């Protein structure tokens, strides 16, 4: 019994554990509200099918959020992920439309994403620009490029394109859609990279105290740069998978995605000042966000009201983070 209690305590101190509990509570609340408004019997929201669907919807955002977690742990940020995703979707569509080479369409998009990340990374780490302003600038460049590549229209990949390419976005393992598998693969790879490798641990030290990291002989520039490249590659993967799944790209459809992605990362417990957080936390953040937005949509909440609520949650999450940094306790510890 006491062992159980201790395990529970340990769980609660884990990164993002309180968010997980909050998420479960919210799922139950949604279920109750939906039970009240619907007349059919049985579960509505809490069905495995619905929850897996939510996870599937979150795949694109999640893949990028895991990459962004690395960047944010170093104390930097990437605001260009949304427009990068849009542009890479257009690039992928163009590849497929002009060559119908599945390998090029898939891996080429990832490579171009990595190059875009490298641009951000070099500007932030080697030219030493403020990451917020830099990526705001490159974001504008990517948006313009997306419009240029697509000529402002929806690009459609033919239905009979490379089967390899389509497989990457539509296959399924039983009830588990390949999008969820991608999400899990990226989470595991980046999670292990962050927690088990020298590179990952050095990212924490850079974010926690850049001066001390320099005094410890850590090559901060290189590490920060690599974290941006990884984020770019994640954008590339998300774009490729998205295209393989939908076969059409709208240059407008990913605008504002960076806010959702950052929200997921922050909700997952990554500190905006760096040095704290984990991929496991971000997973919770991604699921939490997915549950909320799916719940609101299923309740037919107006999209504008959803944005208001999401914005408020973002501000609240950031405030909590800052207050925690300052050592302000909202409630007393026992």
């Amino acid at each position, binding site marked *: 019994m006491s062992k159980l209690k201790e395990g529970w305590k340990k769980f609660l101190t884990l990164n993002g554990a309180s968010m997980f509990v909050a998420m479960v509570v919210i799922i139950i609340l949604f279920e109750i509200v939906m039970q009240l408004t619907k007349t059919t019997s049985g579960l509505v929201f809490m069905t495995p099918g619905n929850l897996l669907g939510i996870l599937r919807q979150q795949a694109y955002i999640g893949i990028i959020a895991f990459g962004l977690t690395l960047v944010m742990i170093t104390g930097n940020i990437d605001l260009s992920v949304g427009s990068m995703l849009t542009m890479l979707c257009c690039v992928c569509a163009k590849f497929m439309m002009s060559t119908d080479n599945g390998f090029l369409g898939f891996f080429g998009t990832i490579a171009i994403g990595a190059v875009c990340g490298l641009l951000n990374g070099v500007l932030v780490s080697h030219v030493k620009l403020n990451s917020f302003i830099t990526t705001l600038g490159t974001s504008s460049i990517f948006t313009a490029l997306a419009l240029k590549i697509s000529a402002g229209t929806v690009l459609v990949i033919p239905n009979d394109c490379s089967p390899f390419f389509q497989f990457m976005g539509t296959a399924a393992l039983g009830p588990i859609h390949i999008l969820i598998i991608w999400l899990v693969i990226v989470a595991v790879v980046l999670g292990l990279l962050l927690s*088990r490798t020298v590179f990952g641990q050095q990212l924490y030290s850079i974010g926690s105290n850049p001066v001390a*990291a320099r005094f*410890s002989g850590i090559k901060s520039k290189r590490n920060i740069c690599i974290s941006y490249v990884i984020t770019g590659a994640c954008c590339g993967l998300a774009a490729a998978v998205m295209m393989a799944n939908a076969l059409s790209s709208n240059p407008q459809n990913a605008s504002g995605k960076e806010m959702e992605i950052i929200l997921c990362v922050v909700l997952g417990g990554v500190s905006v000042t760096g040095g704290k957080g984990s991929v496991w936390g971000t997973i919770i953040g991604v699921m939490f966000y997915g549950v909320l937005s799916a719940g609101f949509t299923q309740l037919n909440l107006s999209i504008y009201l959803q944005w208001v609520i999401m914005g408020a949650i973002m501000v609240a999450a950031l405030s909590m983070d800052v207050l925690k940094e300052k050592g302000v306790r909202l409630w007393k510890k026992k």
Partner: protein
Amino acid sequence: MTEERVPLIELKNITKVFPGVKALSEVCFTLFPGEVHSLCGENGAGKSTLIKVMTGAHQADGGEYFIDGKPVHISSTQEGIALGVSCVYQELSIAPQLDVAKNLYIGNLPMKGKLIDHKKLYHDAADILSQLGMEISPKTIAGDLSVGQQQMIEIGRALTRNARCIIMDEPTSSLSEAETETLFKIIGILQERGIAIIYISHKLDEVMQLSDRITVIRDGQNVITMNTADATQESLITNMLGRALDTMYDKQDIPFGDTVLEVKNLTSPGVFEDISFDVRAGETVGFFGLVGAGRSEIMRAIFGVDKYTEGSVAICGKPLKPNNPSAAIDAGIGFCTEDRKKEGLMLKLSILLNMTLVKLPEISKLGVIDRKKQKQLGDHYVNAISIKTPSLMQLVGNLSGGNQQKVVVAKWLMMDPKLLIVDEPTRGIDVGSKAEIYSLLTELAKQGVAVIVVSSEIEEILGTCDRVITICEGKKTADYQVEGLEPETVLAAALGHAEYKWEGGDKA
């Protein structure tokens, strides 16, 4: 000096306690109008704390504070300024983008209704500048002024607030000789107007030249207050030191090996100049100098975090790449920095990660950390140098100062350094941990590590080192063997009064 005059400021038995340290204990101090009163003492003697109590930045825990004979309780620097106590700090607080007039009246601008009265502002500013004998326009941008002129603006700012007592903390540390003379003239002008000056400087000749009276404090206590006429530089130095060596040191005779570190003509303009020395395996060399003399900067340049323009550094005969800390670490240099919170530790991260940070590449395969090995290493060092913590996963920020310092030391011990530089290794830590750190340094020297100890405490240098190199204003002023050395000789050399007792290093 007629003692019937009412002192402008009188402090009686002021005591100030910080957690674990008694910074001031029953300190008394009086200041008469129009007097220049110098405050002398070693680094950490309590001068700054005393000033902070006077200006209101700190509140005394005991004792009484009188201004014009009336008891006061000053709870903020604003209140202090309102009562006429202003301080010109070592670090200037000039807004470089604003013009001189706005800098003079910052926070106190003349108003006409809700708007700034620019006419009055520039008129008044010109008046203050002429009082200070400065021939510059009040519309000059402050950032374009020399450091000396900026300092005058700070003094001018005190005048605009009707200061009656101006505290100057090391005012000449960044001034040229000509600027210093101008400053002295201005001090004379202020004195004539009845403004009292508290003058703090490590430069004893300035103290002797300027002041009417001198108070020496040591270990947070009054040692003596004397009229300058009765004082000599020698008597000041003796009073500033005046302590016997402790028995907490554990110095042993260790045979020296080959030369490990060789520094030749290291120069960084304006910071240090033409520094040459070497350190042999098993040898412990102390660097002594006053704060700001350039000791830490030399170490930072050797380690590669700062640049240098001339000279060379070699480890075991191999030249070391400049400005590259990771190359320095690969070559075997460990560096426990002066400010462990800023430069040494990641307070938000675990003890384990902090300790093994430098070692990580070595205990990993293809970039994947061998976590078992990491934990073993952590356990080993926590026991070996007795870091008191419930767990390796504890955040470093939660440890006491002494234990934090041990984490930093452990970090560098793990890499088996050839040369270990420790900068102010015992600052802000308790006596027990101090002794442990000293015996650790001896242990390292025994293993053949070359050690450099940078310290502002003479006892620490004399108690731990084989040799001491003194630095004054960026230059090497002496290189003494420690055996039989008097603390006074070292302090005199660090103050730039060495009778150049050059011993030609240790090339025997």
